[in-house]
């Protein structure tokens, strides 16, 4: 079942912060976050595991709430380069990397 992302779209000015949420109705094993710019491939940002481990880019932070089966991606002091569509991909159990992606959140950063 597809995870649900919120909000669907965010518009920011440079320097502002944003939070993107990803919720699942099923128990999660891991949550992956990717950013996709128009006409390009999704690019890995972060992976969060059940149990608290995480791995990702230094300037990106995220959380994983196991009780709520929810992950949040925190974008602070946004830059123009942050613009794009953010996807969460969820993994249920150790499933050889089978990710179910959310519908995406479009982030636009203006000067």
């Amino acid at each position, binding site marked *: 079942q597809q995870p649900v992302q919120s909000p669907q779209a965010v518009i920011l000015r440079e320097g502002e912060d944003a939070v993107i949420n990803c919720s699942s109705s099923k128990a999660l094993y891991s949550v992956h976050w990717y950013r996709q710019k128009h006409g390009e491939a999704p690019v890995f940002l972060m992976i969060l595991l059940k149990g608290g481990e995480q*791995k990702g880019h230094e300037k990106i932070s995220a959380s994983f709430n196991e009780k709520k089966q929810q992950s949040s991606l925190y974008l602070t002091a946004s830059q123009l380069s942050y613009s794009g569509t953010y996807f969460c991909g969820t993994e249920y159990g150790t499933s050889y990397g089978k990710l179910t*992606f959310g519908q995406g959140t479009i982030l636009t950063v203006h000067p």
Partner: protein
Amino acid sequence: DTAVSQTPKYLVTQMGNDKSIKCEQNLGHDTMYWYKQDSKKFLKIMFSYNNKELIINETVPNRFSPKSPDKAHLNLHINSLELGDSAVYFCASSHPQGPYNEQFFGPGTRLTVL
């Protein structure tokens, strides 16, 4: 450059034709994937291979047939193309290191069926 590459980048064809998309990765990964991204940007996994063995086979029409000649290559052949097959197809690869299996995507192949 180390990367996941796909050919062709664009593919325009008529309904009913058969076409193939090729993917290669030189990252030393042992797992490769095919994803379909539709016009609404919905990204859905189709297949995955681990060391040439099919491990994920989602509900996809059997007109789609993946083939992995070795762990660095994963091809996708599509028979009798239909209008609904128009989409961007992404290849990805991963190499689980401990519990982490972040996926690296190729540039995509935009398929247009007329």
